[in-house]
Each structure stands twice: as C-alpha cells, then as structure tokens.
C-alpha cells in the first residue's frame, strides 16, 4: 500500500519569544521541528506499512530549509520525501496551501497509486486544523479527522474502520480507500530512529518540486493570490492593568496566608463563596 504523509516544519512554539518592544517573533535560536502532531500520523502510517508492506512518502510544503524536517521523517522510516518549494507559494493561507498540496499528491499518485493520505491534526504554529480537510475536499477523498484508533484495514475490500473522537463520545466509522486521516495526539508513540537509519537519512536525496513539478495548474490559486484571508494586524497581547495582590509566605505562616486569601477572595466575590458552599453541600 502507498501512503502519503503531509508534514510541516514549524518553530518550536514552546521556545518562541516575542520582542517586548516591536512585537515581532524572535526566530534566532528557536529550533525548527517537525510539527509534533504530524508525528502521530507518520507513526500510524509506518505501522500500516509494517503490517501490509508498501511505501510511505512524506511531503512538505515550505522553504528550502524544511528539507531537514523531511530527513527526520526518513530517519524514522519514510521511504520517499518530497519538498514542495517555490517562492510562488509564499503567503499562502490554508485554502491556497491545500490547493498546492493536493496538486503535489495528485502528481505522486500518478507515479504510484496512493491508497491513503495522512496529515497532522493541526500545526502548533498556525493551529488551524484546516489543511487536512481542505486536501480531502480538493481531492474528493473521504475525510476521517481526530482518529484515535485504526480498528481494521481490509485491503482486499478496500475498506478501513476507525474510531474517531467526537463530542461526548467515540464514533466508529467505516469508509472506502482512498481516504484522508488526521490522527489525534498521544494515540501512539513515534519509534526511535536507528543509527543506520539516521545515516541513511543524512545522505538521502530529498526530491524538490517547484510549482510546475508539483503540477500546479492555476497560479492564481497558490500563494498570496490564492488566499482569501488577509492578515490586517499583528500585535502582542495586552498586559492586565492591575497587578496581583501578593501574599508572601516568608512573612507569615502558611495557615495565615491561606485564611487571608480566602477572606480576600470571598469579600470581593461573595457569590463564589455561596457557589462553593452549595457545591460542597451537594
């Protein structure tokens, strides 16, 4: 079976700092990583390959340095890696991104038939969760988002059964291949890359596709031109005007501190006290 996994290289958001005066992202020294949510999808794809044989192709749209993220995926066990990179893609929102990636996946499909596409649930920089559904709709693939478990894959019948996290419960869904799946986080654990695999990945020739290689037919649908959303303002969060009322443990006992806190809170918020009493009585 042939599985395509779409990944994104993102700045590690946990380490991002914003310049306090200019409100700009300070990228210096912030490591670029494979979007953590993508790894749950990659691992699931690798497990399907382990079980049924075949091939996993990873695709990433991004600047030339995103090649590093693809190499990482190769070290985990991906067989083929394609970087879709072109200045014409710059400024793409999720609609334009899904167009470019869908074009590239169609190209991959022409080389070798694709049975399944995986994307991450969302990215940690954009956080939109929109590109996966976008690719599915553009390619007419069945869409299975927030999948917590692949229950059964029947290649002969061309069906797949999954558990999908819905609101208030789990849906058991069955669909036909080809389909697009986004995996829920913490549903599996990414395998370790072996030393030989890392050496293989370091020397691996990542294929680089520009917009023509990726089969983009309509240049008005990619990059800024193909993006209906316009970023009109970027700004930093406003600090709260009043400072916290501070209680320092060094100056008094823990018990006094606790009682002072309770008194302070309940004097200002008498309804909260009543709510808590009601809760405890119930």
């Amino acid at each position, binding site marked *: 079976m042939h599985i395509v996994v779409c990944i994104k290289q993102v700045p590690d*958001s*946990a380490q*991002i*700092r*914003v310049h306090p005066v*200019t*409100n*700009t*992202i300070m990228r210096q020294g912030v490591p670029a990583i494979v979007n953590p949510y993508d790894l749950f999808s990659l691992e699931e794809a690798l497990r399907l390959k382990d079980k049924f044989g075949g091939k996993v192709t990873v695709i990433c*749209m991004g600047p030339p340095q995103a090649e590093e993220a693809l190499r990482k995926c190769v070290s985990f066990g991906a067989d083929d890696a394609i970087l879709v990179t072109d200045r014409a893609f710059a400024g*793409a*929102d*999720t*609609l334009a991104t*899904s167009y470019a990636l869908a074009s590239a996946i169609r190209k991959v499909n022409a080389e070798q038939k694709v049975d399944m596409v995986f994307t991450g649930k969302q*990215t940690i920089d*954009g956080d*939109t969760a*929109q*590109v996966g*559904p*976008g690719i599915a*709709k553009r390619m007419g693939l*069945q*869409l299975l988002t927030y999948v917590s478990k692949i229950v059964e894959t029947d290649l002969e019948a061309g069906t797949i059964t999954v558990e999908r*996290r819905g*609101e*208030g*419960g789990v849906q*058991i*869904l069955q669909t036909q291949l080809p389909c697009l799946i986004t995996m829920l986080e*913490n549903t599996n654990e990414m395998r370790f890359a072996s030393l030989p695999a890392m050496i293989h990945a370091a020397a691996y020739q990542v294929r680089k596709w520009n917009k023509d290689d990726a089969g983009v037919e309509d240049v008005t649908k990619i990059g800024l031109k193909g993006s*209906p*959303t*316009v*970023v*009109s*303002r*970027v*700004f*930093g969060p406003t600090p709260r005007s009043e400072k*916290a*009322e*501070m209680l*320092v*443990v060094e100056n008094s006992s823990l*018990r006094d*501190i*606790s009682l002072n*806190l*309770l008194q302070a809170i309940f004097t*200002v*918020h008498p309804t*909260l006290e009543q*709510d*808590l009493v009601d*809760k*405890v*009585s*119930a």
Partner: protein
Amino acid sequence: MSDAQPANKPALKPAGRGRNLELSDELKAYKGVWVFIEHERGHAHSVSWELLGEGRKLADQLGSPLCGVILGGPDEDLDAFAKEAFTFGADHVYFMRDVVLKGYRNEPFTKGLTDLVNKYKPEIVLLGATSQGRDLAGSVATTLLTGLTADCTELAIDPNTRALAATRPTFGGSLLCTIMTLAYRPQMATIRPRVMAMPRAEAGRSGTTSEDTLGLIETTIVTKLLDFIADANSNKINLPYADVIVSGGKGLKNPDNFKLVFDLARVLGGEVGATRPCVQAGWVEADRQVGQTGKTVRPKLYIAAGISGAIQHRVGMEASDVIVAINTDPNAPIFDFAHYGIVGNAMQVLPALTQAFSAHLAQRAKKVA
C-alpha cells in the same frame, strides 16, 4: 488563517500585492449572520449559544438577521434546539432533516451546509471549534473556496469595509493577529467553547423557521457510522465548563505531587487542569490540558500551582473570574495576570489551602443547614 504568512512585521497592512481585495457586486448581496448549531445525542453544544450571543452583536451592527442552522435526523427533536436558539438571539432557523443527517458525518453535513449557504447567501458563518465544527468548517470553506479563520478570540466588524475582523492567537499565543476575508463570501470563523461568554436567555423570545431538503440517499454516502460509544460519566473530564479548576505545572516537580492538586480540587468540587509540559510528560490525561493547544476555560475560580504562566497557558485561562497563582518565583509571568499571588512552594501551600477551604466551607455549610 494565513499559516505561512511571515509574522516578522509588526503591522501588516491589508495590502494586496496584486490580489483582488474588492468585493464583487454579486457577493455584496450576501446578507445575514449564521451560526451552525451543533448537537449530539439530543444535546445542543453550549458553544452554539455562546456563538449566538456573539453573532447577535455582529448582526445588530450590520443591520442583518441572525440565523441558526440545524441539521439532523427526522426523529430528533430539532425544534427544541430552535426554540432555545431563539431565546439566545436567533431571528430565524434553517432546518434540514434527513435520515442520513442522524449522527455527524462529514460528507452529508458538508453538502447540507454548503447547499444552504449557496441558496441563502449569508455574509458570515460561525461554527464552534470542536471536533465536529472544525471538521465541517474546513470542508465547507474549501468547497465554497472562501476564507476561514480558526479559533478566534474576538470578532468585530471593520467600520471601513464592513468585513468581519476576526482576531486569533498565533505562534502559540505569543502574538495575536486580526484576519479579514475581503473579496470572498461568506466569511467563516470557528470559535472555541468558553472563549465567548454565555448570553442570557430571553424567555419568550421567538423567531421563524424554514425547511430545506438535503437530496442525498444513504447508498451514495461512502462513510458509514457504525456505532457511537458515549463517554462514561466517570471518565468525562469537562474542563471547559468547570466552575472551579485547580491546575498544576512543572513546578510540582513530579507526578506524585499532582495528588495535592487533586486534593484541593476535590474539596472545591472542581476539576484538575495542567500545563502542556505536564501532559507531554504523561503526568495527567491530555483532556486536562489548559491553553493554546489544550482547552479554553473560564471558571469562577482558577488556582494555578507551580505554573510559570507562559503565554500558551495564559491564552487558555485568562478569562477566569478569579485567578490565584502559587509560585516560588516572585517574578514569574503568572503574577502579571493573576488576581492573587502567593510566593511560596506549591507543595506546601496546596495542603494549607486544602485545609483552609475544607474547614471554611464545612463551617459555612453547617450554618446554612
């Protein structure tokens, strides 16, 4: 959302760089604010009412009607949801009832909402940023080829263009950006549960309804819903709607100390939350994560123990009524937005607080009785 947009400029003007930002006359005819009303197993999701409250303000500003959209099975009591929607501000409700719409599935719901939009042409469509709403919004926006802004924290109408100005956190909450869809309609946005305040229900308020047909039959729908396993009540962690939350961070040093957080939460009848590092380390379940990549909460009381207050955490809880922070570092950023701060070791302060709250509440409860 402009995912790949470089965020290294402080204030990007809506400059087109060759792209069309003018609304065509045909699209100018799009009128009305819509809210997709989400329901599952006989219960409407509260986020739908929160969105109606917000949608009402937008509709009033635009002088447009506020409409709800309810898709479901013919044997489901959708009329009850419509009645409730009217009390929260809806003027009109569009129904679509079909057996294939019983239980959420992407394909029939995408067709249903897309068809309604194409027929009635609303200018704004709002959905909850839930697993259902996000799945549907991304599919509908791509089918309609229009703009969609995810996880908005503020919605406003831009006075110059009358466009929806949707503000959302980006880069893990380090920055906020305002996004507009200028040359396309409808303008779509998702908003997480609890980001917007619950509106007050206006009893007796009513509205109009209309019915449309989906025109799909089961045999043409590829994906089958075989079963739905409802979460057992015992393992349901309803963080977004909890009144009291006690959260722990890496300052608790090890997973065993989380017991102290659970103790205080139990005394207060509250839920336990956590920061992303704690969830990633496997100290507590992922459903307990508060913040940008976790849940948004707005309890009456939020107690943060051993949490430094990174922006990723802050964006998920700063709307709480009362925030109490416990941290050993007097300069921790959490004290910049907490209402009460205790500078001290959470492992010592938590048991003291548990004791104090327990004694105080027991005494008050006795008085009442």
